[in-house]
């Protein structure tokens, strides 16, 4: 009786499903967060009677065999890279991306991280950094005396100096990937390039398929509470039903044991 183990694979799968859902819900208000979904697949089948085998000399065959499965496995936790809704913040260094692309961030270990979270700040040197203090790449330095910073939808950063003249401060560039769902999340709203994502291609916003920028806005998480709760209910019920199977298998074992 494999039922015990089959049900155990089911419970484990649903446990992971709940973990994924809870992470989505926990990050419902995380800027630039992209939700994940657990994908399942069935495991191998045991053929007790193979379909298509001959049942007589005259060539009659078994039309449908007997196949007994062995449970479920987790195929992937795919990240859904759909656009999150934009929320107005009124902060001049908040930038949201509408469409394709990621901001590039210089990480302390020298690698480049990618993020959709555009809640930037100025550090002590006037450099544009993330809330963790990592510099935005290509670097943009905003002198202390510069005011009224505007970031156009094509990524041009401008300001007004003390004399009242408009000065160019830099250009925000975006990176995009062939398979953005293949990026590796490392926390802190950051992603790393992987073999699965392909190499980054950089370019200016609003140019050749890149998304455009929106100053004074932030991109919210693409988590939809209703969907998540519905998924949570179905995951929990599935977990319960699988535990019922374990109970039933246990009862059957105990019946057998109590025969004598």
């Amino acid at each position: 009786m494999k039922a015990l183990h089959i049900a155990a694979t089911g419970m484990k799968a649903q446990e992971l499903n709940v973990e994924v859902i809870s992470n989505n819900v926990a990050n419902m208000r995380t800027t630039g967060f992209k939700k994940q979904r657990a994908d399942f697949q069935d495991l191998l089948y045991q053929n007790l009677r193979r379909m298509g085998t001959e049942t007589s000399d005259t060539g009659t065959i078994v039309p449908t065999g007997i196949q007994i499965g062995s449970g479920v496995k987790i195929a992937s936790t795919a990240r859904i890279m759909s656009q999150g809704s934009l929320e107005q913040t009124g902060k001049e260094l908040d930038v949201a991306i509408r469409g394709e692309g990621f901001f590039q961030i210089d990480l302390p270990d020298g690698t480049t991280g990618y993020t959709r979270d555009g809640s930037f700040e100025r550090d002590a040197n006037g450099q544009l950094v993330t809330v963790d203090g990592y510099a935005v790449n290509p670097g943009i330095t905003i002198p202390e005396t510069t005011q009224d910073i505007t970031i156009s939808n094509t990524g041009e950063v401008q300001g007004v100096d003390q004399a009242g003249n408009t000065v160019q401060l830099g250009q925000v560039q975006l990176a995009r990937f062939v398979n953005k769902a293949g990026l590796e999340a490392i926390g802190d709203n950051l992603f790393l390039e992987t073999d699965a994502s392909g190499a980054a291609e950089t370019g200016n916003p609003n140019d050749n398929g890149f998304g455009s920028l929106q100053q004074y806005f932030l991109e919210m998480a693409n988590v939809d509470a209703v969907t998540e709760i519905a998924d949570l209910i179905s995951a929990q019920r599935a977990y319960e039903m699988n535990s019922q199977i374990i109970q039933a298998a246990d009862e059957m074992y105990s019946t057998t044991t109590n025969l004598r």
Partner: protein
Amino acid sequence: MENAQLVALSRQSILRNHLDVIANNMANINTSGFKSQEMSFVEYIMPVADGTAFEPADREISYVDMFTTRTNFEPGTVNLTENEFDLALNSEGFFVVQMEDGTEAYTRSGAFQLDATGQLITANGRPVLTDAGAITFAREDGLIEIAADGTIATELGIRGKIRVVNFDDVRTLEKVGDTMFKGENPVQVADARIIQGAVEGSNVSGVSEVTRLIEVTRAYDATSKLVKDLDELRQQAISTLGRIQA
């Protein structure tokens, strides 16, 4: 009398297999594109010694045996996911996937993605086939739209058509795991309806599986009771008949 015990045993061992099938359905209640299975039984008549010479003749003994596990191909619910490479089939048919050994496998689970080169693959990394074989998207393709009939339109124009096939007799399809089926002689489906941004859920119905589960456990209990009663009967027979009367 021993026959009755053997008949009960045949029932019990099959109930265990039946429980395995229910467990597998239940384990896959959230597996996209999964098709539930049902087990059918057959009466297996044990040939007995030719008893025509006697009056009354020997009765035939019927055992129970597994006949087949039938796959239920009813469609599952369509769940919207917003993922541009999630495809749900809202009609009959199967997506075609290329296996490692070059053969084709068929699946209803349309949770597809891209690999590093931009090729459309399943969650296991196997290429999804279009009319012209596997398809690879480039950055220039931009937004990818897959129409209801499977036509793939990108910013570079029409790139092909997702292949959807069906079979004369879906009952002959063999499950090979990974929500895939193996089959022979696929026929192109002309009127496929694909929904982009959705996946087909499992068609396992929790309620009916639990009902079957109760049936199985109760049947198992009842059969065990029968075995126990037979055992007691035999014990009684031995003690009654075996008494030596002086």
